[in-house]
């Protein structure tokens, strides 16, 4: 593939992620934090996010499947997930978490279940997209190109 084309498609793809609201400006900030001294910063953080989120979602599913749901346990998980998703700019996950927390406060099991599904869905979406994004980047890097920086602001 042509390098320029790949760069273009990466840009378009990133843009689409922002337009869909999967990511927000926080992700851009992350990208800005990445430089020569720490070239893999974004992917490191995102990988961490994936690891944590997998674990948290797993825990959440377990807690919510209990006969008696202990919301005191559920809430910190959601909080953490919200924190990490907002840190990497996974906007939709974060939004879902906000709703999730409202239900947690109301101790609404039904709502929590629905929200968990929602969060999971959003999470897999962002995971999928980000993985694709990284793949594209890797391809560009592999073919000796430079990853174009993203534009700020929408």
């Amino acid at each position, binding site marked *: 593939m042509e390098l320029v084309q790949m760069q273009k498609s990466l840009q378009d793809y990133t843009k689409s992620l922002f337009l869909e609201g999967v990511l927000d400006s926080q992700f851009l900030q992350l990208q800005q934090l990445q430089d020569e001294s720490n070239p893999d910063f974004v992917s490191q953080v995102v990988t961490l996010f994936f690891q944590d989120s997998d674990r948290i979602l797993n825990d959440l599913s377990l807690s919510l499947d209990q006969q008696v749901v202990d919301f005191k346990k559920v809430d910190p998980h959601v909080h953490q997930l919200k*924190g990490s998703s907002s840190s990497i700019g996974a906007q939709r996950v974060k939004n879902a978490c906000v709703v999730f927390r409202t239900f947690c406060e109301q101790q609404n099991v039904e709502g929590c279940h629905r929200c968990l599904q929602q969060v999971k869905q959003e999470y897999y979406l962002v995971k999928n997209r980000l993985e694709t994004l990284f793949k594209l980047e890797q391809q560009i890097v592999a073919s000796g190109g430079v990853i174009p*920086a993203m534009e700020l602001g929408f």
Partner: protein
Amino acid sequence: MVKVTKFVSSRPLVSLILLVVFGTIPIVIWCIATKNIRNNVDLLTEDLRSSLVSEIEIIGKFIYPKTNSSTISLARVIDSSITNNNTPFTEIQTQIAPVLFQAYSTFPQVSQVSYISTDGLLFSYITGLNTSFTVFANSSGGDYSWYTQTIDQRTGLLIGDATRSQPLNVTNTDWFHAAERDHTTAFVGTGLGGDDNEKLFQRVVSLDSKKGVVSLGFPVKYLTDALNRLDLHGGEICMWTKDGTVLVLESSQNASSFTPRDCSSGGVKEIKGSKFEAYCSVLEVSGVPLTYTLMSPNKGIGTSISHAAMYMLIFMAFYAIFWPLGFVVFMARAARREMDIRSTLINQMEATQQAERKSMNKSQAFAQASHDIRGSLAGITGLIDLCRQEVKPGSDVDASLQQMNVCTKDLVGLLNSVLDMSKIESGKMQLEEEEFNLAKLLEDVVDFFHPTAMKKKVDVVLDLHDGSILKSSNVRGDSGKLKQILNNLVSNAVKFTVEGHISIRAWAQKPGPKSSVVLASEPKGSTVSMFSKLMLCMNKDQSSSSSSSTYEKEISNSIRNNANTMEFVFEVDDTGKGIPVEMRKSVFENYVQVRETARGQQGTGLGLGIVQSLVRLMGGEISITDKAMGEKGTCFQFNVLLITSETPPVSDVEAGGGDYITTPNVGLTINTSSLVGGGGSMNIRQHLSPRFNNCLSSSPKQEASRVVLLIKDEERRRVTEKSIKILGIKVTVVEKWEHLSQALERLFGFSPQSSMESSLRNELSSTSSRELPLIGMDGVDSRSQIPRRRSASFSAFVLLMIDANAGPFPEMDDIVEQFRRGLHHGVVCKVVWLNEPNGRGSERGDICCLKPLHGSRLNRMLKMLPELGGIVPKQELQRESLLRHTLVAAAATSPKGTTSCEIQEESSSRYNKKLGKSVRTVPKPVGNSGDEQGMSNASYDALLKGKRVMVVDDNRITSSVATRKLKKMGVSDVRQCDNGKEAVRLVSEWLTQQGSVVDVLPFDYIFMDCQMPEMDGYETTREIRKVERKYGVHIPIIAVSGHDPGSREAKEAIQAGMDAFLEKDMNQNQLGKIIREIDSKRTVHATAE
């Protein structure tokens, strides 16, 4: 007094005893006194009576003292003169009559002397009226007749004729017999003869020879006269003989009413009730016993005195009993009334309290409910967002969802206003102090409403008046609430304005006494506390309002006391329908809407009420000011008190520079020495010595830049012109696009090149280049008055600001193009098209500016002018025809110089270039905020360079992002820590290793996440502070949380001992600010120590 009354009234026994004790003493004294008086009176009356009696007795004794003896001696004499047994009348006449006459003339007071023989012969001398006469009986012969004949007074011889008179059978009378029997007797009876038959005391003595009797008569009249002469002192006397003939009656009373016969002895008897006291006694007058009764009214005096005393006593007793009784009754009644009033008061107060409690509870419940509703609404919004992500953009569902979203937002807005209202009512509304830029805020508000208003073809104009806001635009206060106030007013204005414009004016002034009048207009209760206390139960709602007003007052006072306080006055002026005068006061009340104007507009009517409360909370007052006659619309004016923060001296103050007026917030540096205004600059010149003045005028003069304004809207044109003029820049205003080319020609149609070049040389040689822009001399006329010399340091600079909608765009574009071509060398021309967001842009690369041209945007444009720091690049001077000039470049080369690299700025421009975009829209960060950012960014490196920092966060991702950010900012060492306990352990370990003297802190800063499992940020901080205290150090801890800086969590963090509060995304500006704050505190500490 009340106490005593109460005491007495409460114990009847005590009062009784008191009454008896105090009552008997005067009674006893009184009784004794009356008794004495009575005794005395009795004694006196007794004396009086006895003296009277003795007087009477003396009279009785001495009036006819020796009648008896005289009669007896007379009888003896007569007896001796009678010799034979049977004496004929002639013998009597010759022998006895002279003796009788002798007796008649010698005895005093005697009025009758007579001799009566047993055989009935009689001879007597009697005193008549004025005369004396004799009565004699001649019994010679058979007939027995009496004759009366007058006598000679001296001789006693009979004179005149004797007249026959009716004879009396004298010898057969009682007294005659009694005299014969007892030898002597006395009686009271009528005389023997005469017409008058006067009553006489008569003394009859029989002769020893039993031949007859001699009688002497004395008149009773003398006694009566003597007795009448007595002073009886109101008394009466009555005298009578044994047979009941009344002699003396000196009384109005009927004598018959007496019973004199009982009164034989001298005794005192009461007669006729109590009126008189009668004294009966027998008085013997010339042997006749006379009974008399002396009646004196004295008896009545004593009784009347005692009666009067008795009545008096009874009255006094009554008085003594009833007066205190009445007093007690009166006091009791008063006490009862007071009790009634008190109980009413208590009831009222209870009712008041209850009402207040109810109201409070209601407000609280209201707030609670609103809060809950808001929570649910937030959920709905979130869910809507989620749904919208699901659906295909552009579909019907998406549109519906969008509408739902709008509705929810409306609901939230409504709820917020209700919540605000209840918060204000329950007094929970508090101001959140934070630093903000007032000019920016105003601009934001106007920008926010501009598009909406423009849809209705209404322009929203920001008028900064004299620019005083810009000079002190960094203020501390509640920006959110101020914004709310402005938003409310402006949105109202937009809502009700159909045509025209809305202008928002603002200016700052020193808080004067004028603003304190505002407070005086508040409920009077707070000032007249006594009065308000009295009225407390009367008007409860007023008291509550006064309490809230005192709260407001406190706040405003605290603001007022600050020396840095400035009063900011805002005006929102629209050309809408206006508010009728009579409604002006009530529009600020809650739930009130002006019906006539509100038709077709929805709302709760809470807006202005909230606005007023908020304004008062900020120590100001809101009012509707009167507009000039004929002007439409409403003008709301309000003032607030805000603390201006000291603007730190910015690095660009150069030594030896002229008078710099720096307004760092706007990013404008105006380096003209006379910015005071047009008049000011002229004055300076006039006051200079003529020589210097010459020198000045001969020195090469800076040709001022000129701004040509073509704006359609009149108000905006006026305001823009003014605000540019304030900066000391000449403005030419063109009202219609048709006039544009004409105006341009007149202005710039000439410019001799030679003069320009010479002036350029002069300028270079001159060291003291002074810029004297001639302010106020705008327009074409002024051109002819000033020497036509071009400035040297900068070429003449023309800035065309043209409203793209002022006329047909292509034509205007052509005019500009022509003008530009016709320009001479050295004149730089820039064109700014004022455009609507999606308007057309110029292809030639002119600068386009979004429409609301005001505030920072205007300043940014003006910054291109050389006076305001814009430098026209050399190459541009060379290639004037190519007037492409990007704003970014202008900003980058400005003397303020963002020499330090600004990441975002740089990158964004890099991206822009990469993306091949021409800089059409002005990138956001450029301008005031950009400058600030650049500045603060420059200091980040210095601030954080080489620092060691600990990040405490349970979330690995957040933690590593933060770490990375900090490293980027120059932090040398970041220690990540994923829970609170670990953090505490690390700190304490370090401190114990250091020993007793800690020179180096373990970390320069700790960034602490607030919500962590096991041990949260607050707890951790407390622990760390505890450990620190032993070593006397203080590690700055900065809280990092997802909440707002003004939220409860933030306050909790500060309470827990953290130094500052930072939002989770770790905005670099904020971080920089916080770190500076902490550092400044620390240095203060250090110097203090």
